[in-house]
């Protein structure tokens, strides 16, 4: 079948020096070539090879979960990852945060005219690798090209579907006073790895993004404690904002213990330097989990037994609070509110 194709376009794409132009998004033969030589080659699976506008999939019985995320990270490549693997992890994690087994991904690309094909290839191959490692294939996709100055290299929106096992009922509204609150590891690494790349801030660190697919960890946690109450990945807005979201959804408060929250020293240092609070810095391979107090010990053991949960820690307790405040006992001995992120996290000077 690819023999037939070759008749139509013989010169392969120039992945060394070529650039995306408007023709690659026009839906004609140039678009078809990009799909064939880049996307199909990288993602290579039978669903995508169906070549129809939608992919025909088989699904085990159960309640389905659907999640989507747009990825617009800048820079596109950063220590520990790139927008490609991020877009796979980001959506797999959102599916996993319902306790579901992620099964299929779709990917839609918005490319900026002039984007180097070499970089696009690197991104797509990183995506494909992440998808293979996670065992979640990209089964359908779409590619558009926008004029130079109307995009930012590449944006990737991914959507994932998965199936929730019987007996699992996870919901942000499930937290109850007395429940234990955990985080699966050190916070703030992803956001800080990216900020360190911003030319204007110009600092050097060994910080690498924590981007990772968490469904394996979730499966291990559910095997130990099937009745987990809440799962959520503290991405944009960081730990603080995600806890506030849960508090609002469950109509409870929380009380955190500052010294229990795992933060790498270099992340802490970079935050000091920029006047930021690690509680508000984004993560991409961490989760927050809430369970009943009586399951807390078993859960923590299960998390720590998994490589992605090795530094898991109990960071607080759910409390009754009609105002939904997340509070924290500071390392210093005081107490304070841990509020939602307000606005954008701008480096603070004074």
């Amino acid at each position, binding site marked *: 079948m690819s023999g037939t194709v070759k008749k139509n376009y013989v010169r392969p794409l120039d992945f060394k020096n070529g650039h995306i132009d408007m023709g690659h998004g026009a839906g004609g033969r140039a678009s078809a070539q990009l799909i064939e030589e880049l996307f199909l080659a990288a993602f290579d699976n039978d669903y995508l090879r169906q070549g129809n506008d939608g992919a025909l999939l088989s699904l085990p019985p159960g309640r389905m979960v659907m999640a989507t995320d747009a990825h617009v990270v800048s820079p596109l490549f950063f220590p520990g990852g790139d927008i490609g693997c991020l877009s796979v992890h980001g959506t797999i994690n959102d599916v996993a945060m319902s306790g579901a087994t992620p099964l299929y991904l779709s990917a839609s690309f918005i490319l900026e005219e002039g984007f180097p094909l070499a970089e696009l290839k690197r991104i797509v191959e990183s995506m494909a690798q992440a998808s293979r490692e996670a065992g979640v294939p990209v089964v359908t996709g779409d590619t558009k090209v926008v004029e130079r100055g109307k995009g930012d290299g590449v944006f990737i929106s991914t959507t994932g579907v998965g199936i929730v096992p019987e007996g699992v009922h996870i919901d942000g509204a499930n937290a109850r006073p007395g429940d234990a609150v955990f985080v699966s590891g050190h916070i703030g690494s992803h956001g800080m790895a990216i900020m360190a790349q911003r030319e204007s801030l110009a600092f050097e660190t060994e910080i690498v993004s924590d981007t990772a697919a968490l469904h394996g960890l979730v499966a291990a946690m559910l095997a130990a404690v099937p009745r987990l109450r809440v799962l959520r990945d503290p991405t944009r807005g960081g730990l603080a904002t995600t806890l506030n979201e849960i508090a609002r959804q469950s109509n409870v408060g929380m*009380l955190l213990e500052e010294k229990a929250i795992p933060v790498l020293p270099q992340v802490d240092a970079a935050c000091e330097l920029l006047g930021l609070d690690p509680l508000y810095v984004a993560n991409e391979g961490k989760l927050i989990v809430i369970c009943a107090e009586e399951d807390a010990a078993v859960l923590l053991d299960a998390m720590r037994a998994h490589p992605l949960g090795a530094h898991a820690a109990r960071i607080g307790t759910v409390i009754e609070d009609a105002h939904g405040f997340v509070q924290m006992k500071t390392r210093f001995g005081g107490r304070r509110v841990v509020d939602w992120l307000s606005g954008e996290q701008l480096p603070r000077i004074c």
Partner: protein
Amino acid sequence: MCLAIPVRVIEVRPEQKAVVDLAGVRKEISTALVEDVQPGEYVILHVGYAIGKVDAEEAARTLELFNQLEQAQSAERPIAPEAVK
């Protein structure tokens, strides 16, 4: 008022620049506002500029002061911080 932090000088560079370190995070800063910066010294960094040095002896003395208090006058009443939880 303004945000500033003590960082360690690890390298002095030409044109009144230095590389500083804070727990493994490194950054090139300007030392144009401070005389005679030496590697190993700590400076106070503000918006990319060293604005002063940290006097190690004085720092030690201040920390001592915090504790001396206790030693000198010992706890007269039991410490009862507000119950948080």
